[in-house]
């Protein structure tokens, strides 16, 4: 037997053949171009999401929640999927941005676009601080350290006065976007969230399919080699971390405006676990996986809400099944069937 968890034959989580997307093009100057199957999948996704408000059976607030968490999962996926770092404390960025934007909108009277921007920037700043400390470590250490920092943010949110402790910041005004669109109307709010989600999604897509993204993958596969080629691995990892934190913040800030609430739920470690599960279920390192994972999990949560603690059991069981026999995730498996990395 080889060393448990060690040895030469070990396959990485992110073995590109197994999980990660193959690079979309071989020639570097074509890296930014969309392969046809990504374009098709993106088209389907946008079409479905645009159609949502016109289908009466679907509750738009549910889809808005799923969209916010899908963006959160996509941002998380930047780290685990392309840098190979598992953060177990991403709730800190989601929650902190939520508090920041809720506070800005409610107490300072910021318009929604400024409140969301403020929350996003706050999460990015927090990401820079935590990232600087955490990025020096790898693997399990990294997971533990991010978890501990997130717990620090949790206790801060519990004790600070402006966060409202157990009550959170309630009845945050949605306001008027750019002074034109009244966000109190559900449909207007929905399309605003959709635009924010697509914007975030495209930023991530562009980032990971750029030369920058290629360097991240190189660091993931073989860091010493990337360093020997002259890339400053630490800086690349930090930039990826801050990008991930910022977009998680965008998701959290938007969520606070949609639900008019910033609460401890979003900073709690269970949320950090949930985003890991969404991404794992959808497919680590896939482009569309986190979105699918978020929608499946939020759908399940909605459906099982009346069962109370059963949802936790189901979540745990999904984790176990995914890790043991379904490591590619839904989209990863689909991509394998179609022989196209999605």
């Amino acid at each position: 037997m080889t060393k448990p968890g060690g040895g030469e034959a070990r396959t990485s989580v992110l073995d590109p053949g197994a999980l990660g997307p193959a690079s979309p093009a071989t020639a570097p100057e074509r890296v930014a171009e969309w392969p046809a199957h990504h374009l098709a999948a993106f088209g389907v996704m946008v079409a479905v999401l645009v159609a949502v408000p016109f289908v009466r059976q679907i509750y738009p607030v549910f889809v808005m929640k799923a969209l916010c968490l899908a963006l959160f999962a996509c941002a998380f996926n930047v780290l685990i999927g392309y840098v190979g770092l598992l953060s177990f404390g991403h709730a800190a960025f989601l929650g902190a941005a939520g508090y920041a934007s809720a506070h800005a909108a409610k107490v300072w009277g910021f318009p929604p676009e400024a409140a969301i921007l403020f929350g996003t920037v706050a999460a990015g700043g927090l990401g820079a601080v935590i990232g600087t400390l955490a990025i020096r470590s790898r693997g399990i250490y990294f997971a533990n350290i991010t978890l501990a920092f997130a717990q620090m943010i949790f206790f801060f949110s519990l004790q600070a006065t402006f966060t409202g402790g157990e009550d959170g910041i309630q009845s945050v005004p949605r306001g008027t976007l750019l002074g034109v669109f009244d966000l109190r109307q559900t449909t207007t709010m929905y399309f605003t969230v959709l635009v924010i989600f697509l914007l975030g999604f495209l930023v991530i897509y562009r980032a990971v399919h750029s030369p920058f993204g290629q360097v991240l993958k190189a660091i993931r596969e073989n860091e010493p080699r990337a360093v020997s080629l002259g890339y400053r691995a630490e800086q690349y990892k930090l930039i990826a971390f801050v990008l991930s934190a910022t977009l998680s913040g965008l998701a959290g800030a938007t969520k606070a405006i949609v639900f008019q609430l910033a609460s401890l739920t979003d900073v709690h470690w269970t949320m950090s676990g949930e985003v890991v599960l969404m991404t794992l279920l959808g497919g680590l390192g896939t482009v569309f996986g986190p979105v699918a994972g978020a929608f499946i999990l939020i759908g399940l949560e909605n459906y099982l809400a009346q069962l109370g603690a059963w949802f936790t059991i189901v979540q745990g069981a999904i984790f176990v099944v995914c890790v043991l026999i379904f490591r590619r995730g839904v989209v990863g498996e689909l991509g394998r069937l179609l022989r196209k990395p999605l």
Partner: protein
Amino acid sequence: MNTQALFSQLLIGLINGAFYALLSLGLSVIFGLLNIINFAHGALYMMGAFVAYFLLQWAGLGYWAALVIAPLVVGLLGIVIERSMLRWLYQLDHLYGLLLTFGVALVIEGVFRNEFGSSGLPYTIPSQLVGSYNLGFMFLPTYRGWVVVLSLVICLATWYVIERTKLGSYLRAATENPTLVQAFGVNVPRMVTLTYGFGVALAALAGVLAAPIYQVNPLMGSNLIIVVFAVVVIGGLGSIMGSIVTGFGLGVVEGFTKVFYPEASNTVIFVIMAAVLLVRPAGLFGRAQ
């Protein structure tokens, strides 16, 4: 400064430190051989307390029996978890072990929360350990003194077995190079299984010790385990003595913080962790990765 308050916080710190030490010791032993962080540790600690509660309610078996039986039962469950699930992940990235045990923790906690809600169930102190000693400067409740002494004894015994006996030398050798140890005729897979069972049994023992102090509560593990993870990072993963010393030490530091600056008592360990990471990324007692 009220010395009475100072010493009683110091005692609470020592008690917390005892639990930190027992839990981080188990995590370290498991990490050393299996290379996984056992996220289910908190849930299994909680199960230890619940097994003690069940033994009392259903079988009429008291504290002393629970102190032996609960670690055995939970250790057995750990062996089942290792045999049926963890062993398929050794060839993969270590992070999968973390994710799997996280899922196991959610399932266990969900089951107990479903049955018992999130309020605590009382567990009385055994009659032999009721009362307190007058130490002159303060009163020491007998049970709390017992917890500190027993956990210290168990921690040191574990350290002795691993660092000073033949069995321990096999374990340390397998941590360095399992293939070679296997070639010498040691059954490494069985050792891995028993090690996981042992680490988990330590958590259950801590759970039984905790039952009379805190109540028996489905959430008692998840509240504690994240702090213990920070303790492990500070001490350095895989270091046996490191986890004992940092466990007790950080408990005491936390106790002092409660006296001098109570607002920070929840976060002081995380702040220390950040500071340690800046100076020694592998932890105080850890070797560089």
